[in-house]
């Protein structure tokens, strides 16, 4: 990720570029990382709704949106997606938190 110089910033530290959270990578904050188990996924979009950042990658080309996986540049490893995942509550988790190695 590249950083702007002070001469390139807006006065007052305001941000004029809407939706810029996408450009700001927070993925290196993590200890745990969600693993996507595709065969258990019911594509309910709960993970996408609950994700506090923009880490859930979805495919919107069809009639209904489909869960594709995790955008690791934005996943801080909070585990909310894995907690809220409805199949997980029935013992067939589509998102499983594992300790990230290296």
């Amino acid at each position: 990720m590249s950083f702007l110089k002070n001469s390139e910033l807006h006065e007052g530290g305001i941000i004029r570029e809407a939706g810029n959270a996408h450009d700001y990578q927070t993925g290196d904050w993590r200890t745990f990382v969600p693993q996507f188990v595709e065969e258990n996924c019911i594509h309910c979009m709960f993970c996408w709704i609950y994700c506090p950042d923009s880490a859930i990658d979805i495919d919107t080309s069809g009639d209904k949106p489909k869960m594709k996986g995790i955008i690791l540049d934005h996943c801080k490893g909070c585990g909310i997606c894995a907690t809220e995942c409805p199949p997980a509550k029935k013992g067939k988790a589509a998102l499983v938190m594992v300790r990230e190695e290296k």
Partner: protein
Amino acid sequence: MEQKLVALSGNEAVAYAFKQARPHVASAFPITPQTEMMHKFAEFVANGETETEMILVESEHSAMSAAVGSAAAGARTFTATSSAGFALMWEIVYVAASLRLPICMALVNRALSGNINIHCDHSDSMGGRDAGWIHLFSENAQESYDNAVMAWRIGEHMDVRLPVMVNYDGFIISHTADALHMLPDDAAYDFIGKYKHAYTLLDPENPVTVGPLDLTDYYFEHKASQLATYERVPGIVQSVSEEFGALTGRTYQFCEEYAMDDAELVIVVLGSSAGTCKDVIDEYREKGVKVGLLKIRMFRPFPVQMIAEKLAGRKAVAVLDRSASFGGQGGPVFMETRSAMYGQQVPVNNYIYGLGGRDFDLHQVEEVIDDLQKVAAGEELQLINLLGIRS
């Protein structure tokens, strides 16, 4: 420009100046000795003389928060306070400057607690001297009014965009009837001009994020940009003052010089005490003592260059502080002045006076000038002194 000569208290004079700016929003909480100013302004609103939205909040922290919200929304905004009220605003005082919001504030100078005291000193303003505001000081009702008119132009200038604090001494100026010349409402508004915002929260076509989390990767760059702004402020204050002078016949500098041309001894002071000093200086001038006065009108940004130039080559300088810096070396005005004079061989002594509204009388000025004469003759006196104290 023909101006009406009126008799008003400092509070009333500033309320008129604020009304003439036709502010969109005013938020405030009452505290002595500021109350009368907002009282007068509320009267203007109630009488339909200005269409300002008054926000009556439950504390000064909220008053400043509301002012920040209003200014970020793109409205011309002011507030006013004193003493503990300013102390309670503390957190948001920094936010206003950091977000570059040109809020105007009347700070009617009053001592801080404890013990509780309602009278004048400058400890409230000095506590906020590093918060990023422009600090203007006034000697009388005329200067309070003039500063309160010019403050909008300075703060709202597109190369400045900073909040401005108009300081005037509690009770001594705020509650004393004084004669002053006032601009007609339309002429004052024409001078101040229509408000232009640098950004607004209320434009969905151009969305902005204000005050986001700013950590180790960007906070310092934002502070670097803010720091650079203060270098531009003096030039803009100068040009606004000149334009104001052309309109009113009253032109101000960062510092006012009184009997300074051939002065060997100089008193440096802020606010209403300058008037007392001028009277005593006149007496000493009649006796042939070459003493002058340098009254600092703009304390932030501190006019380093002008002060260094004006004090260079004098025989002795006395800096008067109406606030103390506990555990520091002398008062804030002394520290700044002495630092500005670094490298000069002029002896500078500090006098702390008038805390909690202790009367600053002619004898105290005489004491200072007598000391200056001794220092000029080579005597070494105590660096930091208290004036008018029973000991």
